[in-house]
């Protein structure tokens, strides 16, 4: 019953795939953003797990950066979304087909 890095990697891969499904299948941009967050978290799990088993803190440092990037992404992404919503009253990704307004 020992938990190896492989276990964490599999968990991470599964979560990542869930994120991919979300991005590819859903059309609500907010959900797609959230799916991206899930993927980032999958990566983080991997990094933390390997940081532990390789006894190297670099993995954890990268998680800090990933979280920072996620915060930036969420802020800008949602800002764009709000601006878009104000003009087109939709959050459907399929209707976001114009380059400018």
């Amino acid at each position, binding site marked *: 019953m020992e938990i190896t890095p492989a276990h964490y990697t599999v968990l991470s891969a599964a979560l990542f795939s869930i994120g991919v499904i979300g991005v590819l299948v859903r059309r609500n941009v*907010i959900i797609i953003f959230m799916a991206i*967050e899930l993927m980032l978290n999958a990566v983080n799990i991997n990094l933390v797990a390997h940081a532990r*088993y390789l006894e190297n803190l670099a993995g954890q440092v990268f998680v800090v950066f990933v979280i920072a990037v996620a915060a930036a992404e969420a802020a800008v992404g949602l800002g764009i979304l709000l601006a878009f919503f104000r003009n087109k009253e939709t959050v459907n990704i399929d209707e976001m087909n114009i380059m400018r307004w």
Partner: protein
Amino acid sequence: MAEAIAFYTLAVLILGLGVAVITTPKTVHSVVFLVLNFLCVAVLYVVLRAEFLAVIQVLVYAGGIVVLYLFVVMLVNLKRAPEAHEDPRRLARLGLALSGAVLLELAGIVVYSYGRVTPASAPAAAGPLTGAGNTEELGWLLYTDYLIPFEVASVLLLVAMVGAIVLARRES
């Protein structure tokens, strides 16, 4: 043993909540599931002896970023469901298949890489990282070896902040 129980419980929760996030019809519910998912991930970090990251995960992800999502969901109160519009060029099945392929590929990598290492040489036996100083060590690394990335990240956050304000501001 304890770690195994914790891992499997958390794995089930994380994956279950992950599926809930992308399948729930109501966006607000998705956000709630996302928060719970992040909290479970934070607990997983504790299991992995990364207490500082666990706390940061809760503070920044669950307490900050997802609140932002919730705000947007509340502001973007839709008259019609975004899924109602069906774009004929959109191929959801292909998407599912593609995702399955990604999963398979990842699984292949895992099997390939970990299958070849013998248990003896695997670093799995590694004990907890040195004691209580996790936060200190992490801080030390951030401010020495990773100082430049750290500064770049802070500039990135500043840019994001300015960008978000510019984007969200109403033109009057």
